[in-house]
């Protein structure tokens, strides 16, 4: 990790941010997503809180939303890469001496920055609406979310450069996202399910991350929960960055 590497990553990241910020529609969608979830879905949970084993609807709901934003926003990051590839941008970057990892990390920088802004809006509004979470827990939750978000963005980029077609990529993303959504307890905690479903969902890495983020926000994080959540987030991030770098290195057009 040399200075050159971070410089190259920053050049790529800045270029991506410039393009993203020039498109006001995306900026607005990015900001409104967490707001809409909070105001339109949050109230539905309020009457159900007791059954879910929580005391405060927003303390329960915000962490789930946070991870969902991280995963789902990032999964679509790769679609813009296909456009860039089609216009020859990826090839032009690959012909320079820049590190292939930097080409990926620069893009992840954009995605994670967007995620950070969304997370801050979500958590800030959550506090306004009555969420009770310690600051340290919120910071920890954001860090875990950035890790899993980065992993998903890297995987999405890798998938984009492998498929090179939106038509192929969209169904693949959907196929991956369905079990993640259903088995990770993002919307409702898995613990309220029947035993077989609870056991089954333990095979879903994201579930452990959601548990960790949620217990960090609740302020009663056990070491065990935090360890597995962090370990899975770190493992997924490393694996996805490795995969992404490999596709930037190869990109066997």
């Amino acid at each position, binding site marked *: 990790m040399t200075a050159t590497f971070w410089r190259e990553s920053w050049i790529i990241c800045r270029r991506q941010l410039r393009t993203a910020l020039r498109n006001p529609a995306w900026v607005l969608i990015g900001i409104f997503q967490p707001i809409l979830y909070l105001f339109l879905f949050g109230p539905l949970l309020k009457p159900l809180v007791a059954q879910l084993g929580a005391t405060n609807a927003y303390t329960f709901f915000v962490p789930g939303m946070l991870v969902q934003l991280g995963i789902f926003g990032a999964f679509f990051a790769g679609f813009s890469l296909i456009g860039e590839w089609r216009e020859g*941008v990826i090839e032009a970057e690959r012909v320079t001496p820049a590190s292939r990892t930097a080409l990926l990390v620069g893009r992840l920088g954009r995605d994670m920055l967007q995620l950070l802004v969304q997370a801050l809006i979500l958590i800030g509004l959550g506090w306004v609406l009555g969420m009770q979470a310690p600051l340290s827990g919120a910071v920890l939750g954001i860090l875990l979310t950035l890790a899993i978000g980065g992993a998903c963005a890297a995987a999405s980029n890798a998938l984009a450069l492998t498929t090179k077609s939106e038509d192929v990529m969209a169904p693949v993303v959907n196929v991956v996202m369905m079990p993640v959504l259903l088995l990770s307890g993002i919307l409702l905690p898995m613990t309220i399910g029947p035993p077989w479903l609870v056991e089954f969902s333990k095979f879903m890495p994201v579930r452990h991350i959601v548990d960790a983020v949620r217990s960090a926000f609740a302020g009663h994080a056990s070491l065990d929960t935090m360890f597995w959540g962090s370990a899975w987030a770190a493992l997924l991030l490393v694996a996805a960055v490795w995969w992404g770098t490999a596709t930037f290195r190869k990109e066997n057009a």
Partner: protein
Amino acid sequence: MIHARGLVQTFHTRQGKKKTEVRAVDGVDLDVAEGEVVGFLGPNGAGKTTTLRMLTTLIKPTAGTATVAGRDIVREPVEVRKRIGYVSQSGSTFSSARAGEEVMDHGMLYGRTKAQVEKRGKELFAELQLDGLWERMPKTMSGGQKRRLDIAMGLIHDPTLVFLDEPTTGLDPQARANLWTHIADLRTRRGATVFITTHYLDEADALSDRIVIIDRGRIVAADTSENLKAQVSGDLVSLEVADPAARTTVAEKLGSIAEPPRHGLPGVQIEGVHVRGRVQRAGRALPGLLASLHDAGVVLDAIEVHRPTLDDVFLTLTGRSLRDAEAGGEDGADDGPASADPTTSDEMKGALR
């Protein structure tokens, strides 16, 4: 500048259940000296782009070795990349970015400072007639402007060796002629070595010192345009003779100095009032022929000499004309990103099913 030995690139394509191996490049040897402008000519699908992508370190050769700008393409790809410029067929700028920013970011990825690339970029914009387009988005530029912007991208770090892949494909004649002068400038003004692929004969002819012809993944000839034409085809001599009886005499005399029939080219032929044949360096041979025809009492009505074209060269070398080769070159071996796409997506679809 470029020394390649036995370069091979194979791709796997899948059609239904059958998996086939395509040898897109099948043992290419290449030598390009410093300061040379070399045209790499061949029909679509001949392996031009694939060879170029190996030389520019975008893909690893399946077999073979090459040094480019003094560095090994497999062992020291980063060192090769620092020294070469590459203007790809598919463009290099994002359509909604600003032209100047794209050029600057590109230059900064070569380790140049912001001040350096801004200064160099603006100089290049002036040289390449892109004045006033620094803030423009590439999507609002004309085809010719976009190609010149791609060239600016490729030159921002002042490479000593520049690769251009099909630089004028899809341009209108004026934009093409204009781009040619800029390509010629690469050597005359900055002393760069230039390696340019094209499937246009006139382009190879007009721009390069030396032409390397590739067909079906193999190099079939490499020489100056003049030598290629002189060695292989000879000039086409067409003699118009009104008197039918005299035509056989003319054909006989022409046959004594003309090329015998071989490959795709016929020998001396009589077509209507014309007697045609191919003669090496016809300018030198014709005075003798005219004298002997005069002695034989034959009267010629007209005489025409056509310098051979590179199409003739291609025909003699491969037995096919370049145009036929294009039509028959369905392949997918010469993969710009666009044509490689179906393969990959078919594989993906297959995997999903």
